[in-house]
């Protein structure tokens, strides 16, 4: 027999009440845990994915949309920008480097991103099998893509136009070849199919205006003859027809070409953060979007919902605390005699105090641990139900230090809830109680 067992025995005598209190508390804690995990993990994934990118330049439109489409690859691009303008901008003295992106196609819902090798360096991606893309129409698969699609080095596939795998608008005549698999990075690259800018152009045949309407499934797309692939813009010096062995751009921007979707910009000096966005937005037909600014804006937008839900969770926790307090308070009336008997058996007042506090703590601790597990369970189910959770950066198995604070916080709640009943137990006047017959 010890105090823990004793307090536990009292909890067991009212199982339904205890269950209610534990479930109530667990529910509140679970909501708090889910919000904590989701916001922490999404925030981490956001900063991880935008690391090293000072500015994104895209077509005029919503800057948030530019960030979402070009860094996190979850929204549609705002349109395309002319390569010539991009090249002009890249020569600006405030800019250290630019990485071009060209979007438009997908395979099984995984986006195909035309870029250069600097994109790999930006995210520090290693090739785990095979090589990087070296010719047009060669691709390297992100780790999650390779795992989920089952494609491996040497396989070929045709891309779908747009970002939704609807089986329509498949570019049957243009087959991509997998030449490499990328090592897992825990960021957005895992869910991308990377290739050269030239591949994307080749598939789309430099069809200007195409990219602005990517989202439209019924978009009309000209599949011209091979011969027509030699086009007016002719980014091949010789003007030869497109071949699969076409040379590709490994660094910087291609010498010739028509349009790209966006440009990831790295500044040379902090001054650029002040001058460059204004210059781009006012003097060019392009739109500049700052990743930290836009993610902060995104968070402030969804923050209202998060705050509301969090407030709701706190209300539940407070009600749970109140319920625990009432349960203890009421049971203590019935237990006055028990407490007096314990005193007559040698228990000191502090011991009775601890005994009652312990009862509150056992309930809150159980509820809290259950709530945290429930929270992780919800994240786990969410990651199972929704496709490609990796894109959100959610992982059910991760525990964060904030959860320790949730645990400590809920213990404080339990302490407060049982404080008044415990003081009453401490003050039990044994002589008076025993004299009551």
């Amino acid at each position, binding site marked *: *027999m*010890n105090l823990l067992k004793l307090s536990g*025995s*009292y909890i067991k005598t009212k199982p339904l009440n205890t269950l209610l209190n534990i479930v109530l508390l667990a529910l509140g804690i679970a909501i708090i845990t889910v919000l904590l995990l989701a916001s922490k993990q999404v925030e981490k994934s956001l900063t991880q994915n935008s690391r090293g990118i000072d500015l994104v330049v895209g077509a005029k439109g919503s800057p948030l949309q530019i960030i979402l489409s070009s860094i996190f690859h979850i929204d549609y691009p705002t349109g395309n920008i002319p390569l010539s303008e991009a090249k002009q901008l890249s020569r600006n003295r405030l800019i250290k480097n630019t990485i071009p992106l060209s979007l438009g196609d997908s395979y099984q819902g995984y986006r195909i991103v035309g870029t250069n090798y600097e994109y790999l360096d930006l995210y520090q991606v290693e090739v785990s099998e095979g090589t990087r893309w070296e010719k047009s129409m060669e691709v390297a698969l992100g780790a999650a893509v390779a795992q989920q699609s089952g494609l491996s080095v040497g396989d070929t596939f045709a891309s779908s136009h747009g970002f939704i795998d609807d089986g329509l608008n498949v570019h049957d005549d243009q087959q991509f070849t997998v030449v490499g698999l990328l090592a897992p990075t825990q960021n957005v690259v895992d869910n991308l199919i990377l290739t050269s800018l030239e591949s994307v152009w080749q598939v789309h045949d430099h069809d200007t205006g195409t990219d602005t309407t990517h989202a439209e499934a019924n978009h009309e797309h000209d599949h011209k003859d091979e011969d027509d692939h030699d086009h007016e813009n002719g980014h091949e010096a010789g003007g030869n027809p497109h071949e699969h062995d076409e040379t590709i751009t490994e660094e910087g921007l291609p010498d010739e070409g028509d349009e790209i979707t966006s440009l990831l910009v790295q500044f040379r000096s902090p001054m650029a953060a002040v001058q460059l966005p204004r210059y781009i937005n006012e003097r060019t037909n392009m739109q500049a979007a700052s990743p930290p600014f836009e993610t902060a804006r995104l968070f402030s937008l969804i923050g209202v919902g998060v705050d509301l839900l969090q407030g709701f969770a706190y209300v539940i926790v407070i009600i749970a605390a109140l319920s625990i307090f009432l349960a203890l308070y009421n049971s203590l009336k019935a237990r006055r005699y028990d407490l007096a008997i314990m005193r007559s*058996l*040698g*228990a*000191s007042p502090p011991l009775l105090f601890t005994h009652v506090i312990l009862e509150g703590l056992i309930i809150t601790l159980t509820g809290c641990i259950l709530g945290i597990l429930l929270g992780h369970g919800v994240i786990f189910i969410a990651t199972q139900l929704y496709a490609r959770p990796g894109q959100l950066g959610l992982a059910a198995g991760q525990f964060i230090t904030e959860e320790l604070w949730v645990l400590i916080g809920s213990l404080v709640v339990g302490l407060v809830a049982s404080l008044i009943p415990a003081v009453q137990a401490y003050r039990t006047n*044994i002589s008076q109680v025993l004299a009551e017959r």
Partner: protein
Amino acid sequence: MIQLQNISFRYSSDSDSFQFPDWSVPSSEHAVLLGASGSGKTTLLHLLAGLLRPTNGQIIIGDQDITQLKSNALDRFRGRKLGLVFQQPHLLASLTLEQNLLLAQYLAGLKQDRKVIRETLDSLSLKHRAKARVTTLSQGEAQRAAIARAVLNNPTVILADEPTSSLDDENCNRVLELLQNQARRHQATLLIVTHDQRVKEHIPHQLTLAKA
């Protein structure tokens, strides 16, 4: 040994003061404290048990003046040296019989010894009920269990508060016999506080408190 010297007590500063006669019960003797309701016998019992503190005087139990003990030491002394039996058994309903006895050892700060518990239960014909929930015990069993709890820690003094009042003659005799047997077994001083005149016939050493 129980010794009362010059004890007075008042519940609050504006209430009447109880003045108790000097009295002593030698070691291992059995005695009965009689008195009508309102004579202060429950007050005296609580003073003896250290549940109340006298305004004046000395209460010596064994060789300890318990009025000198600090609150913590008094609680400990009560757990180890005193065995209390009440009119109602008052076992803790959330525990089994054995757990009730383990609790008595735990609260007294003594080693939790199941062997001692088994022996004590055996002496009160309760061994087979050790694992029973106390709510399933019969009235007689519960009364014996309460006695078992009082004598478990080998007390110097057993204080019984109206142990027989609600019982018929047969059961009254049986309980008195049990108390006396157990007191002898543990060589404890037994003091029964009661208004039940039947107890007089069994225990010659008496003190009758007059109504104040």
